[in-house]
């Protein structure tokens, strides 16, 4: 172990070239977005979650849950790719894996801050998750494993920064395993509810893992592109190859994800409970159809495929744009999944209920979403500024 002081460590990792007025302005802007956005969530603790958010008895989960899932899924993806590069070495993504570990931590922080203001009594969670754990609960496992994963990744990242390669490697693998299981439990939260036919079924946890590989690769391409954009310099050949490699993964998983989505929807139309079919109708021709066809399919699937083809996996800008659009599609896909599972009344046919409940997120819910984006943007900029050299060094172990 080296006896370097903290300031000496930061002196080695920091990227002074990024201490520009433009960067400072962007950092301050996203800091404000984060504070103002998450303050919307803090209001829930003052005025009541039931007042601030538009969740109801019938639709207890809304956009905050789907956004939590989006960030958690993206974090898992980034973490898996980083760990795979660490463990197997030799993959082209290895050179950018430090950045991926950092962004995985940042994405899970965005997820935690979103769910932290969504849950009515997080202080009770801190106490009773430990004092009264329920081993049959997916939520318990998910929270515990994501907590474990972020702990591992923070130590891993500290190992990377301080040059403790062995610790970084072991913790990186442990963190990735925890992330995969956590992601699986997140899928399980929805997949194990027979009351909600649109979610219930064995496919969903695999679907979530597929989404993690997709969002992770898309985020890897996008953040690496942005890292060089803010530096105003061209990628080196090796980094370019790494991004190309992430782009390939993104393309492959996009196809897998599209296939999974197709069969998932088809399955509701060949039989099964009416509730599931009516929920699928919400996407195909009902209140979520614009989200589905315009954003999930056109913006999140077709346009990225076109861009990837046009880029020939060479033009990083185009690939980054494709990655960004995929993330937009994934964000909306999570929203549609969460909403569609609850949008059909369970007692349809009684009380003169319409086929679909109406749910429009409140302005405060949008505020929290902005806050989460702020966390990620701020984390990205701060990461590049403080650990930039660690992210761009040729080999870290």
């Amino acid at each position, binding site marked *: 172990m080296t006896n370097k002081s903290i300031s000496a460590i930061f002196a080695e990792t920091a990227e002074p070239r990024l201490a520009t007025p433009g960067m400072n302005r962007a950092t301050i802007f996203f800091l404000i977005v984060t504070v103002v956005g998450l303050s919307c969530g803090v209001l829930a603790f003052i005025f009541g979650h039931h007042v601030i958010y538009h*969740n109801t008895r019938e639709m207890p989960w809304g956009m905050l849950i789907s956004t939590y899932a989006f960030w958690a899924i993206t974090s898992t993806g980034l973490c898996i790719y980083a760990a795979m590069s660490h463990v197997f070495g030799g993959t082209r993504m290895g050179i950018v894996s430090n950045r991926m570990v950092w962004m995985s931590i940042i994405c899970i922080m965005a997820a935690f801050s979103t769910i932290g203001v969504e849950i*009515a009594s997080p202080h009770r969670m801190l106490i*009773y998750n430990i004092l009264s754990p329920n081993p049959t609960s997916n939520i318990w496992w998910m929270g515990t494993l994501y907590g474990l994963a972020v702990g591992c990744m923070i130590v891993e990242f500290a190992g990377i920064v301080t040059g403790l390669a062995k610790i970084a490697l072991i913790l990186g693998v442990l963190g990735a395993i925890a992330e995969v299981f956590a992601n699986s439990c997140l899928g399980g*939260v929805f997949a194990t509810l027979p009351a909600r036919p649109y979610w219930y079924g064995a496919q969903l946890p695999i679907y979530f893992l597929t989404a993690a590989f997709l969002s992770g690769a898309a985020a890897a391409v996008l953040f690496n592109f942005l890292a060089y954009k803010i530096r105003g310099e061209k990628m080196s050949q090796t980094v370019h190859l790494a991004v190309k490699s992430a782009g390939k993964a993104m393309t492959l998983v996009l196809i897998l994800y599209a296939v999974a989505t197709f069969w998932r929807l088809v399955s509701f139309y060949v039989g099964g409970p009416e509730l599931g079919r009516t929920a699928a109708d919400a996407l195909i021709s009902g209140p979520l159809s614009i989200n589905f066809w315009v954003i999930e399919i056109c913006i999140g699937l077709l346009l990225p495929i076109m861009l990837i083809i046009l880029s020939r996996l060479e033009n990083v800008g185009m690939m980054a744009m494709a990655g960004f659009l995929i993330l937009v599609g994934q964000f909306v896909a999570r929203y549609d999944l969460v909403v569609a599972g609850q949008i059909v009344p369970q007692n349809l046919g009684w009380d003169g209920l319409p086929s679909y409940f109406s749910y429009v997120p409140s302005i405060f819910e949008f505020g929290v979403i902005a806050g989460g984006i702020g966390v990620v943007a701020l984390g990205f900029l701060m990461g590049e500024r403080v650990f930039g050299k660690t992210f761009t060094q040729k080999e870290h172990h």
Partner: protein
Amino acid sequence: MNIEDLEKERNEGIENLPLQERRKFLQMGLAVTGVFLGGSVLSLTSVSYAGNQSSPDTDIPAEDQYPYPKHYGMVMRQNRCIDCEKCVEACKQTNHVPDAHGAYRTAIQERLTTENGVEKREFRPVLCNHCNRPPCVRVCPTKATYKDPETGIVVMDYKKCIGCKTCMAACPYNARYFNEEKYAIDKCNFCIDTRLAEGKTETACAAACPARVRIFGDLKDKSTEIYRLLHTPDTKIWVLRPDTGALPNVFYMNA
């Protein structure tokens, strides 16, 4: 009568059977077929046969398999309900249910149906089904909701509730709501704390019902009215959403 003795008897044929006997036989046949179709096809389960070991998904356990010292449940004699909502009001008063939108432990649903060309209004009282395989209990991360080991009633330990609302998403019966006063999820608990603890034998809703729609009691106790109702031959009994496999303890019949 012994089967060997029966074999020795002379077949008397069916020609001289009275009409009454034929009807009885036919009814029995229908009842038996109903049992085997129950649950999966007709979404009904004949509780008279519910203890049958060969069918693991029956709605009430076999006589010697009640998991709780007392096993509380409720029968809804649905066609008696007139939607006076005295049950809803009594529940609100007894259990201090906040006067907020969507806050209720029990409700009455209604719909219009047409029978023989005549429009008919139908009412259906609903509440927590205190399932034997409760999805809400399984999903709760902190065991804030659990089956009371003495009665099988699904109860809440409010101080442990983190407000993740997974139990609300998991419940097939929309039986749970966010209680803004307790800042926790709340639900029907068969008045375990407000009435049963005081030695009363009925829930507030059952006691308030002028039409005796709701019959509450120990499913295990042969002397109770609920036991008698659930074991009356030829009674069509159904549960809500049997497909979810939650094994509810609230049974519906027209009687």
